[in-house]
């Protein structure tokens, strides 16, 4: 078993009396590919956003590569592909890629950026402002931005929303490539077809862990239909 890239202990998120995520203890090994499934409101996005550092835990701790959430080392190790792409309204796709790569200490980024834009099919839109793009094109630009920087783990929230068939195929290829390079992946999705590529499935319901085990053992349809949880 590889060392843990993500480790949580009693990680909890509450809003007043409402619990968005009940205490969660999980370990993710380096290079592991995980699909996170659950209904709307199950706590997937909360969990992903806490790992990314966008939400503060109400209780418990989590580490990324042994470093506390939000630390420079954790930010350096983790790439976050959000469900809603965020851009500067006055920078082109190419400028976004340049600054993100440089902010993460990457010097030789140009060819990698071109390859990424080519992979998602927007190389001819590199000089356009992503704020003017359609939802699908924005998602493609966001995918390129998430992959242009080095990372040890990528956390992804609903990455297939708005993507056409080509975009989905390109994204799955990028996931496979990153996985082959040794990166861990945690993908929260309702797209159950992506479970096939995963080694592990984590299911949440009502903020609680209902399944955590090998993808082969997971009855994903039952888990997402709200049927009783499958024992690991």
């Amino acid at each position, binding site marked *: 078993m590889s060392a843990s890239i993500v480790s949580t202990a009693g990680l909890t998120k509450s809003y007043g009396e409402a619990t968005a995520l009940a205490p969660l203890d999980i370990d993710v090994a380096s290079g592991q590919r995980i699909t996170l499934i659950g209904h709307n409101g199950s706590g997937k996005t909360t969990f992903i956003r806490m790992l990314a550092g*966008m939400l503060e835990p109400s209780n418990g701790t989590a580490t990324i590569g042994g470093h506390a959430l939000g630390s*420079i080392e954790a930010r350096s190790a983790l790439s976050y592909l959000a469900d809603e792409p965020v851009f*500067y309204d*006055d920078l082109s796709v190419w400028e976004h890629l340049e600054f*993100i790569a*440089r*902010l993460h200490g990457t*010097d030789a980024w140009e060819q990698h950026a071109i390859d990424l834009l080519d992979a998602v099919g927007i190389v001819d839109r590199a000089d356009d402002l992503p704020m003017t793009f359609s939802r699908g094109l924005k998602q493609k630009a966001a995918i390129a931005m998430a992959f242009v920087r080095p990372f040890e783990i990528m956390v992804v929230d609903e990455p297939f929303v708005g993507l056409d068939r080509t975009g989905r195929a390109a994204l799955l290829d990028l996931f496979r490539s990153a996985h082959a390079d040794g990166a861990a992946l945690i993908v929260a999705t309702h797209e159950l077809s992506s479970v096939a590529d995963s080694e592990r499935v984590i299911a949440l319901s009502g903020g609680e862990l209902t399944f955590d085990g090998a993808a082969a053992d997971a009855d994903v349809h039952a888990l997402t239909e709200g049927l009783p949880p499958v024992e690991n």
Partner: protein
Amino acid sequence: MTAPQQRAALRDLRRTRQRRRLGDTEWFDVAYRVYLFALGGLIGIVLASDAIGGVIGDDVTRNDLVTRGPSAAGLVIVIACGLGLRSGADGGPVSIEVADVSHLLLAPVERRDVLLRPVVQRLRSAMFSIALPVGVLGQFVAREVEGSRVAWAAAGAAFGALTGATFVASAMLGHTLRLPRWTATTIGAALLGWQAVAVSATWTDSAGSVRVGPANLAGSIALWGIRQRGVDVVAVVVVGAAVVLALVLAGRLRIEPLVRRGRLVSQLRFAATVQDLRTVVLLRRQLRAETLRSTPWFSGWFTSGPSAAGSRLRSIGGSSTPMFVFRRGLRSLRRLPLARVIRITTLAVVAGVCASLAVTASLLLLVGLLAALFLLGMESIEPLSQEVDRPDVTDSVPIQRGHLFTYHLAAPAVLLAFAGLIGAAAATAVEPSHAAAAYAICIPIAWAGALGPAVGAVLDAATPIAVADTTLLGTPRDAEVSFVPPEFAGFSNAFATFMPVAISALGVLPLLAIRADPTAATAIRAALGIVLVIALALVWIRRRDAWGVKIRAFFAAGREQKAAATS
């Protein structure tokens, strides 16, 4: 520590964006606006300084100023400190773009390197935006007491800048030290209480009471136009130290509130740009993370949902539309968050104190009264605002919208009546001899204050095609194109912004009459006048669409006659 190459990337990113922003700026337009603002401001100040008398009250001596001024002005500093602590506990005072949060704060760059600049910008804007009006106020004061205009204006500006710095530093410390809301409120209330005791002691010359408040030295800076004390610099040093500490701790700003505020602030800036005051107020509530209570303050009469069948209010109100809408408003009110209840109460107290002091002391306090009344109105007309902002829902019900809008004012009127009574109690506490006049006029004044926001909201409502499918000149509304020159467009924008404030100013007019003759009889006569105006406004809101249809028909008939004559 941020690596040099990442620091360079951050610097290049900012330079690129700044260059682009500056490149997009219409410099001639900016220069023209600055020129208009400066010219208008200068003329306004000169005219106002000649017209306004009694800024600091009649018969105020130098000795009064020196003994009472520091503690009274210190109240402003203490309020700024308390508001700052609350703002910090709620995630303020800094807001950055969501893209900066996503791309810079999640990058392996020291957060202080990213956040220091927005913090300094916030500090600068707070200091300037308060220093400017207080400096202007200072030169008004100079007309009535010894000391040069320049000295008083400079003292006012310095005091304003200190107030702004106190607010931002307190907010930053409250945020970065993660003060819980209740702690921030407790500290703010304690400081305010202490300063209030000092003000009371110096005002009443009571022996044995605490005359030194926590902000007396800072308050004394406001009087530098008349006397300068070296010891006052201690206040500047303390605030300066707090500012330095805030800048040192800038990297500890929490990312979660920055995300929330980042999403709202771009909308808030847009709303402020188009002078949409209602949206500004709504978004500011969201910035403070104010949400309606999930558990109502009280149930029983006002119970909603399936359990409401047979509830007492329902049986009293029956099923008539006005009562139904009234109940909906009351249900909204019973879920008001505590912060908003406190704000409404505070505004009512401020209105009462300002009204009382405007009668006995400075007329300038009418400005405070007007501001409090207007804000009270903005806080209370929520049900009407909700209706106006959902025209599709309004159009889907078989009720004339003018009638619906007036029904929505019933619940706010109840709330404002309570606020008015609180204001009257505050006015009575300041000057017991004003009790009869205060209670006679408090409720109409509170209603009049809300009239401006209510009229503004009604004017914001889009005119349905069913009411009017053309402009007055007969152009189809969907083809309407504005050819209004910028100067007139700016004027109409300013008119739309200030017209509601001007209407709310009706609420302060009775104070002028009471100042001349502070009796209950005068108050009652003034109250009747206000009620008459409010009634007329309600008739306008109810009949506006019908009148619009008639006016359009009149214009259309004219066009037809003209066409027939020319053919």
